[in-house]
């Protein structure tokens, strides 16, 4: 299931602006990796290069090599949609499809893959909702609009939608930043559970969260506004938060800047 991700000198641009430069990083399967750093340091940009969502924005492009189990996803003949099916993404703000019911939201990805059989969809929806710790709360109202749920439930619905297609990797872009502490806790619990089956990469501004949920932590930073973001340090989470090698990491962790 889960796959290893290997980034080699990944550089990403928005038009002529270089957002991240020369990122080299390896993510082991079935781990949680946290990307931390001050705002504008390019951690979200890097996350979006992993499933080729970066290039969705007009003028955005990526140089370098990013392999998922030795398959370079930036190879010329790679089907972008296949990459994104393999690498799911959860966004900063919960974004269920507003016109769809809870059920339709969960199976949206399967329907895009051509799954039509009702029984298959129902099984998959229940499995995904159970994995997302949401089943008990919504099982009696699967036909109701997904946008009618609370923020935390919506975010878990989005996670269910992402894992319903059984991706190899799950990317999370500050998944808890719009949620209250209780919902945040629910999502963090969920990450522990999902780690058994998926490789997870999470961008977070919350350092306690990074320390709680991740096995490895990557610290990104920029010299000053307008400079590209760079990977400063990448190590075991415990090491980063107790005894980082780079002074800048320590300054950030201890709240001296950023």
């Amino acid at each position: 299931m889960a796959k290893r991700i290997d980034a080699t000198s990944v550089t990403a641009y928005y038009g002529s602006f270089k957002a991240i430069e020369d990122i080299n990083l390896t993510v082991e399967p079935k781990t949680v990796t946290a990307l931390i750093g001050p705002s504008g340091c390019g951690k979200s940009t890097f996350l979006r290069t992993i499933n080729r969502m970066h290039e969705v924005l007009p003028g955005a492009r990526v140089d370098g090599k990013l392999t998922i189990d030795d398959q370079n996803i930036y190879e010329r003949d790679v089907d972008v949609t296949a990459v994104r099916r393999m690498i799911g993404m959860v966004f900063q703000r919960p974004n269920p499809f507003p016109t769809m019911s809870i059920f339709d939201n969960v199976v949206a990805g399967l329907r895009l893959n051509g799954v039509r059989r009702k029984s298959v969809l129902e099984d998959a929806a229940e499995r995904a909702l159970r994995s997302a710790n949401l089943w008990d709360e919504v099982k009696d109202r699967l036909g109701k609009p997904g946008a009618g749920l609370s923020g935390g439930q919506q975010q878990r619905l989005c996670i269910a939608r992402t894992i319903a297609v059984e991706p190899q990797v799950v990317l999370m872009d500050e998944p808890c930043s719009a949620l209250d502490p209780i919902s945040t806790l629910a999502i963090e619990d969920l990450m522990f559970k999902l780690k058994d089956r998926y490789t997870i990469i999470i961008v977070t501004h919350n350092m306690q969260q990074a320390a709680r949920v991740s096995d490895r932590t990557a610290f990104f930073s920029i010299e000053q506004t307008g400079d590209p973001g760079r990977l400063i340090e990448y190590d075991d989470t415990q090491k980063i938060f107790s005894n980082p090698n780079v002074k800048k990491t320590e300054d950030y962790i201890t709240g001296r800047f950023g």
Partner: protein
Amino acid sequence: MGDTPDRSANAGTGGPRVTIGHAGSAGAALSVDVPVTPADRAPDGAGRRGGGSGGGGTGLGGGGALPRRSAFGAERLFQSFTMAAGAMVLVIIVAIAIFLIAKAVPALNANTANFFTFEGWFPNEAQPRFGIGALAFGTVLTSVLALLLAVPVALGIALYLSHYAPRRVGTALGFLVDLLAAVPSVVFGLWGRDFFYGPVQEFSVWLNKYFGWIPIFGGEGPFGRSILLGSLVLAIMVLPIITSLSREVFRQTPTANEEAALALGATKWEMIRTAVLPYGRPGVIGATMLGLGRALGETIALAMTLGIVSSISFNIIENGGNTVAANIANAFGEANDTGRGALIASGLVLFSITLIVNITARAIIYRRREFTESAA
């Protein structure tokens, strides 16, 4: 909120919404500036305001006693103005309705044929005979046909403009579409009658030759000044409305939803089907209904392109067809008293058709409100 005295004054008077903060501060300024005498305030029920001495003049930030609410000011004035404007709509509609009914009833009483089933329009004779059936049928048929032709094209253009076209092309093309909406309908009528007539006639002959076995393309001719020509011209006329409204709603699709679909591995078209079209659905229905409204009421372009034959026929390529509005335009000139009354009666029927269409459209949107409201 409220770290400076200025802001806290706004928050107090303007309520929690940021957007009305300006109105709030203006109101606050007024209540301080306008001198309010005790006599002015008395009739408004002093009990509601409680105690407190006259406006303190200590500035907006408070401190000292709070200034009293003014009994008569811009707020009240504006409220009454908007209410009067609202009431005006009602008055105008009632006045028009009374006038129309008063004119129509005598003509309907004089009618010696059945108003609903008689196919023909001879209200000016000594024994007036006229029926609305054929006209209403022609109105609905041309409009529905026009929408069937226009909506798919309009949605295609709207999607191209909102999601496919490069920005510069999109802007230019969007401008052209809006320009099409500004062309007066009489120009469309002239164009349809003197230029577009030729190709449509040839096309009709061709249709008749190869598809004549389908009743709507049957008949012996002559062809050309037909329902088809009228509907095509009408389709071109309603195209810009439907296009620009649909383009706007498609553009407003939240990026978050589009990205959600893309991140699930949707192709661009799948993304549009999953995120854009469902989100834009109520807007598209609304746009279509506006187009239908225009099509139903369109007068001069149809009066110039249709064959003006008051009979009910599904044949769309033979000379023929008439609509309520076109009939009014064509027949009003030589109408006598009964004739004008009859035309007004037909206008009332057109009004009811439009009303039914609008109610249906609202019902469609309302049925899905649970989903569309949470979308907003």
